[in-house]
C-alpha cells in the first residue's frame, strides 16, 4: 500500500504530457554516482498486519501501572469530547492557517486559546503555542535578553531539572551566563537569589509549584528583580494556577509552562504544548505565531495571523525565533479542555488534586521510617524521605503494580533517598491506600 491513486494507464498519459517516456527520465538530474548505495527496509505491511504489529508493541508498555509519577507531566483525566472534536479532519489535516478565508476554524480556536492563556496567567498577550514547556522557557530567556540587552540569567533550583538542562544546552554556545540558585528546604532561597541579582542580569526564572511540588508567592522576588531592571519569568502548572496566585498577580513579565495537563495525553513525552503569555509591552518580542481579530473587505469580523514581521518567514535571520510548525492541535486540545471544564471545573480538578495529595501525605506520614517534607506548602505533588534508596524502592513497587513516584536522586545527587509523589484527581482513595500499604510492606522487606 502506498496510498497512491493513479493507475499505470494514468501515469503513461501523464508522462506523455510531460514529454518523457518514463518516470526515470524525471530523475535524470540525479547523477548515477549519487544513487542510493542501499535502500533496505522491511517489506510493506497491510493495514491488518500493521495494526497487529503495533498492538503487540503497545502491550509491551506498562501504561496501566497505578501512577504516582509526575515531575511536571501528569496523569489527568481527559474528557472524551476532546478526542471526538480534534479528530474532525478539517482541524487535524489542515496546515498552518496561511489562507485565513479557509482557516477561520483554526484561527478562531487559536485566538480563543490565547485568550484562555491570558486569563489563566493574568497577562496580556499570548501566542499560538511553542514546542513544550522547556523550549517556552528558553524562548522567554531570549525575550529577556533581547529586551534588556543583558546576557545573565538567574535560574531558581526549583525549576524542573529537565528544563534547566534544556536551558544549558540551548545557551551553551551563546555567551549567556546561566546561574542556578539551589533551593533551601525545597523553597526558593531568597537570600541567595537576591545576592545574585545585579544590573547585568536579564532575568530571573522561577517555577510554581516548583519541582518539589512546593507552592510559593514570588512577589517579593519579582519586585527585587524589577528593581535591577530585570525581567521576571515564571514557569507554571496550568491546573495549579487556576487557584494559585497568577503570574500577573505576582508581577511577572512572562509566564510559560507545559500545557500537557490540559487534556493532552502523556504519550511517552510528546507531542506536548509550550504556552507563553507576557505583558503587552513585550508583544513584539514574542516568539511564534499570534492570531488577532480583524475585519474583511466589507467589515465582517475574522481572524488572521498578525505581527508576522517578527517571524522567520518574513524576517529570516532577524526573527525573534525560528519556530515555524508549532503544536497547534495540542493548543486546540487545551482550549477544548478549558472550555469543557470551565471556570468551575478547572478549580474543582485543582481542589481534588490538593485534597487527594494531602490525604496521601497523611497516609504516607504514618509509615514508620518515612518522612514527609512538610516545611513548605504543596499542591498535588510532594517529597518524602525514605530510609532506603528511593530508586530501589520504586523499582520494587513496580512488581506490585505501582509507578510509585519519581526518585529525586536521578537529578539531585544528594537526594538518593527522596521520592517525589504526584496525585491527580484520577487516583482514588483506594489506590492511595494501597500505595501506602504497599510502600510500608516493601520497606519492611
Amino acid at each position, binding site marked *: 500500500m502506498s496510498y497512491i491513486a493513479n493507475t499505470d494507464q494514468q*501515469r503513461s498519459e501523464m508522462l506523455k*504530457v510531460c514529454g518523457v517516456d518514463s518516470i526515470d527520465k524525471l530523475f535524470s538530474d540525479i547523477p548515477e554516482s549519487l544513487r542510493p548505495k542501499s535502500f533496505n527496509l522491511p517489506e510493506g505491511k497491510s*493495514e491488518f498486519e500493521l495494526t497487529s504489529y503495533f498492538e503487540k508493541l503497545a502491550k509491551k508498555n506498562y501504561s496501566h501501572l497505578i501512577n504516582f509519577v509526575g515531575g511536571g507531566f501528569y496523569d489527568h483525566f481527559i474528557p472524551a469530547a476532546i478526542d471526538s472534536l480534534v479528530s474532525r479532519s478539517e482541524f487535524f489535516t489542515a496546515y498552518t*492557517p496561511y489562507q485565513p478565508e479557509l482557516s477561520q476554524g483554526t484561527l478562531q480556536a487559536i485566538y480563543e486559546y490565547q*485568550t*484562555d492563556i491570558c486569563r489563566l496567567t493574568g497577562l496580556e498577550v499570548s501566542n499560538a503555542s511553542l514546542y513544550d514547556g522547556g523550549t517556552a522557557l528558553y524562548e522567554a530567556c531570549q525575550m529577556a535578553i533581547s529586551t534588556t540587552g543583558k546576557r545573565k540569567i538567574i535560574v531558581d533550583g526549583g525549576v524542573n531539572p529537565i528544563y534547566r538542562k534544556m536551558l544549558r544546552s540551548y545557551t551553551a554556545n551563546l555567551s549567556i551566563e546561566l546561574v542556578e540558585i539551589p533551593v533551601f528546604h525545597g523553597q526558593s532561597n531568597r537570600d541567595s537569589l537576591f545576592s545574585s541579582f545585579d544590573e547585568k542580569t536579564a532575568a530571573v526564572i522561577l517555577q510554581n509549584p516548583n519541582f518539589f511540588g512546593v507552592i510559593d508567592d514570588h512577589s517579593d522576588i519579582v519586585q527585587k528583580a524589577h528593581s535591577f531592571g530585570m525581567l521576571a519569568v515564571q514557569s507554571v502548572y496550568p491546573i495549579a494556577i487556576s487557584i494559585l496566585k497568577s503570574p500577573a498577580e505576582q508581577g511577572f513579565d512572562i509566564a510559560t509552562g507545559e500545557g500537557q495537563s490540559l487534556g493532552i495525553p502523556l504519550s511517552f513525552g*510528546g507531542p506536548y504544548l509550550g504556552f507563553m503569555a507576557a505583558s503587552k509591552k513585550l508583544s513584539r518580542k514574542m516568539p511564534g505565531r499570534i492570531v488577532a481579530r*480583524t475585519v474583511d473587505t466589507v467589515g465582517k469580523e475574522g481572524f488572521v495571523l498578525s505581527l508576522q514581521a517578527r517571524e522567520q518567514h518574513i524576517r529570516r535571520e532577524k526573527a525573534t525565533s525560528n519556530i515555524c510548525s508549532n503544536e497547534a492541535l495540542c493548543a486546540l486540545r487545551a482550549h477544548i479542555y478549558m472550555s469543557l471544564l*470551565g471556570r468551575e471545573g478547572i478549580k474543582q480538578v485543582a481542589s481534588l488534586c490538593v485534597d487527594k495529595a494531602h490525604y496521601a501525605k497523611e497516609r504516607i506520614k504514618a509509615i514508620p521510617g518515612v518522612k514527609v517534607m512538610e516545611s513548605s*506548602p504543596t499542591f498535588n505533588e510532594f517529597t518524602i524521605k525514605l530510609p532506603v534508596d528511593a530508586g530501589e524502592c520504586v523499582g520494587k513497587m513496580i512488581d506490585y503494580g505501582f509507578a510509585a513516584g519519581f526518585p529525586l536522586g536521578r537529578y539531585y545527587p544528594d537526594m538518593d533517598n527522596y521520592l517525589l509523589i504526584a496525585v491527580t484527581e484520577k487516583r482514588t482513595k483506594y489506590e492511595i491506600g494501597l500505595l501506602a500499604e504497599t510502600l510500608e510492606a516493601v520497606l519492611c522487606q
Partner: protein
Amino acid sequence: MSIIFQQSVAGRKGVSLPECDVPFHHTINSKYLRSKDPELCELSELQVIRHFTALSRKNYGVDTNFYPLGSCTMKYNPKVNEKIASMDGFASLHPLLPQLVRGGMLTQGALAVVFELERILCEITGMDAFTAHPMAGAHGELTGMMIIAAYHKDKGNLKTEVLIPDEAHGTNPSSASIAGFQVTSIPTNENGILDIAALEAAISEKTAAIMLTNPNTLGLFNPLIQKVADIAHKYDAQLYYDGANLNAIMGKFRPGDAHFDVMHVNLHKTFSTPHGGGGPGAGPVGVKKHLEQFLPVSRIVKRSDGTYALNYDFPKSIGYIAPFYGNFGICLRAYAYILTMGAAGLTRVSENAVLNANYVMHSLKDFYDVPYLKTCMHECVLSAKKQLENGVHAIDIAKSLIDRGIHPPTVYFPLIVKEAMMVEPTETESKETLDQFIDAMKEIALLAQNDPQSLHNAPISTPVGRLD
C-alpha cells in the same frame, strides 16, 4: 460566529468530575491563592461540541480537497496511524517510566518504536545516526546547528558564519542565527540552482556550515551537489541538508551518499503525519559518524539481548533539547507509515510525487510563466508575471482558487521569484484531481485577461472575505 466566551453563562459546566472520595480537605493558605478566578468560559458539553464542530466546518484540510501547498507536502494522512497513536499502551504512557530503576522493562514497546524509526531513517537518508528529539523541522535545524557548533568547538575551530542560498526557507537563516552564527546569503543562478562561483567566493575559514535543501525550494535538483560538498569540506564546513523536500527523492538519492554531514527530516511532511492546523510535527536529525557523539541525550540503544535502553553517557553531547524523546506520538505515526510503505512503496511515493508535479507544470506552462522551465522534482514554481500585466497578482489567483473549492498553492515564496506560486501536488492525488486544479487555473488565467476585477473580489464563497 460568536467567540466562545460570549456564549458563557455563569454556573454551567461541560464535564462532570468525581466527588472527592478522600476523608480530607486541605485548605491552602490564602496568601498563595489568586484573588479572582481565571474567566474561563462556562458552557454545557453540547455547547462546546457545537462550537468546535461549527469552527471545524470553517476550516479546510487534506480530507476536504486538493491542498497543493508548496513546501508543505500535504499528502493523505492515513487513518490507521491515528488509531495506532491512540492505543492506550502508547497514549497513556508516562515518559519518566523508563528513567526509573528497572523502568526500562516498562516501556520496551515505545523504546522500540523510537529506536527502529531512527534506524530506518538512517537507511532512507544514508546518514549514520539519528535522534528523534527535535519537535519540528526548524527545531531540527537548530539542533543541527548546535551539533555543528559543538563539533567546531571540540576541534577548536573558530567558525562564526553559515552560508545559505537566497531561495532558502526562512527557518534556515533564522535557525543558524539563533544558534549564534552570522548568516550570509548565496545567490541562485539563472538555472535556479546554487551559484557555485558565488559560493566559492563567499566560503572561508570562518564558515561553520552550508545549509541547503535539494531539491531546493524552486523544486529543482542540484546535480552539482557533490561539488558543493567538496567545497564545504575543504574548509571543514559542515554540509546541512534541510529534509523538508525529502518527498522528492526517496529511493533515488540519499543525502548521506552525497556527503551531507547533518540533516533533518519533517515527519509531518514526507512521512504523512497530519499537520494539525500548524503542528505538532517532528524533525528528527541525522548525522554522519564524526558528529554522532554530539547528538542530544538521551539516546536509545539496543542491547545484545534484544532489549532497548536509554543511554545518557555521551560526554560530548549537546545535552537535552527536548524534555524526553521527541514528539513520540508523531514519530509513532511516521514509523507506522514507513512500515506500511516499505522500500518499494517509498520509492513509488517519490516517483509519483515528481510525476504529478511535472504533469501540473507542463499542463500549465502555456498559461502561466514558469521561471525555470525544466524537469522539476516534487513541486513546481509558477509565476503570475503574465497576469500581473492585467493587474492580477498571485494572491488574486490564490483567492480565486478558493472559490473553486481548491486550496491555493504557497504564494510569494520562494522570495526570489516574483509573484511566486509554488505547487506541490503530492503523490496521493489522482490525475482527476490534478485536472480539476489545472482546469481551474486555466479558467482563472482566462479571467485574468477578460475580467480581472472578478479575481480581485475573490473569495466570495467563504465565511469571511479577504481579511486585513
